[in-house]
């Protein structure tokens, strides 16, 4: 109990009563924290946009006797406020935040996850601010690296069953990596040589340096592996809004 300081990313928030919000935070030292931001919805709130979703802020948090903690002060480190102005960046940032909230634990530090989330958001922010498109490959790259920082690093260099480096052609969810034709059990999802190259490239490349390589072969696979380990589905992964204008143009044309 008492007052503490920590830096945190705002994962999401929801309304509480007339002017307050409950904010889900991923803090550097205290892991996942849910805290009340009093008066944050008022125009004259002292928090302003410092507790907007995706923001990285230095916070002072009061831990009282009740379940909910209270944010007493916020200083902005990075607002990541350009993300909201690009629809693809926004959709991917939502995935990053939802996935982080699912794997983060209350009161448990995960410094690698914290740095990775910040790197992901910073890459999106820089792309939008510089007017560069957001590469589609950032999405599977983030999810693959998420496996890494939560203790499920995928085995991509050799068969995770026999250690052989030849004839890799499937991805085992149970064993968490590539398996060769001999070790692959029936029904293990197939991957071809091009998919393996893509997986390795996404795994090894920093977010900043990721180009828009076609990842269609591995998108579904990476999503399924992540949800297999999380043991739940992520809402934001299913949220791929089709272009309504384009679609009605097709329908009428």
């Amino acid at each position, binding site marked *: 109990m008492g007052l503490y300081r920590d830096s945190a990313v705002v994962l999401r928030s929801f309304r509480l009563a007339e002017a307050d919000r409950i904010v889900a935070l991923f803090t550097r030292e205290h892991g996942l924290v849910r805290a009340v931001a009093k008066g944050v919805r008022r*125009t004259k709130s002292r928090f302003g946009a410092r507790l907007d979703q995706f923001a990285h802020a230095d916070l002072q948090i009061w831990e009282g006797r009740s379940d909910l903690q209270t944010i007493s002060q916020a200083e*902005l480190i990075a*607002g990541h406020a350009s993300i909201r102005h690009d*629809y693809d960046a*926004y959709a991917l940032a939502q995935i990053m935040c*939802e996935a982080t909230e699912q794997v983060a634990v209350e009161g448990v530090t995960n410094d690698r996850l914290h740095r990775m989330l910040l790197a992901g958001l910073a890459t999106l922010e820089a792309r939008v601010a510089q007017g560069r498109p957001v590469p589609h490959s950032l999405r599977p790259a983030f999810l693959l690296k998420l496996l890494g920082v939560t203790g499920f690093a995928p085995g991509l260099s050799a068969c995770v069953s026999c250690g052989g480096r030849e004839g890799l052609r499937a991805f085992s969810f149970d064993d968490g990596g590539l398996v060769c034709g001999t070790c692959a059990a029936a029904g293990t999802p197939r991957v071809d040589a091009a998919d393996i190259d893509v997986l390795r490239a996404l795994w090894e490349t920093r977010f900043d340096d990721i180009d828009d390589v076609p990842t269609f072969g591995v998108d579904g696979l990476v999503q399924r592996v992540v949800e297999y380990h999380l043991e739940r589905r992520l809402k934001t992964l299913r*949220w791929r809004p089709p*272009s309504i*204008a384009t679609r*009605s143009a097709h329908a009428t044309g």
Partner: protein
Amino acid sequence: MYEGPVQDLIDEFGRLPGIGPKSAQRLVFHLLGVERVDIERFAHALLALEKVGFCTRCHNVAAGELCRICANPKRDPSAICVVEEARDVVALERTHEFNGLYHVLGGALSPLDGITPERLRVRELMERVTAVEPNGTYEVQEVILCTNPTVDGEATAAYLLRELQTLDRSDLAVSRIASGLPVGGDLEYADEVTLGRALAGRHSL
């Protein structure tokens, strides 16, 4: 628990947003003490809500097929102001700065809450923008995106802009409501995001 009708009304008030059992009880006991004519006026106002629907053109609240704004021939139909909720129409009308028509989306995009473009009135907006007059011209010349300056509101505006740009309407003017400092506020107390936006949206004098 109170006698039938009293408890029924307490329960009904208690269902309203922001009203707890204590407030509901206070309201009902207040009503028990007022004149019969006042009760009747109150009851009539409630019953009249039954006739209120939504404007078939802009989806604002309306007593008839069209809302008061769409039915007004003095309004300029070439400009559409896109807002999240009907209460935003009221807020903008109070400014007396806009003489065009509105389009109420019914919310803002929100992936975690499952609010996709299909759940909003995006298609209806695209239909209004591409509607052609009998003389072959487009009626709508300008779209002003007035969704809230929140993360979801801005993302909704970004989505709508992208959608509007895919329409075959290079002549269409699309703008976004400016955001910045509250009038009467102090620079010193503004947060960095708001201040940054205000600076980026500066205009020459």
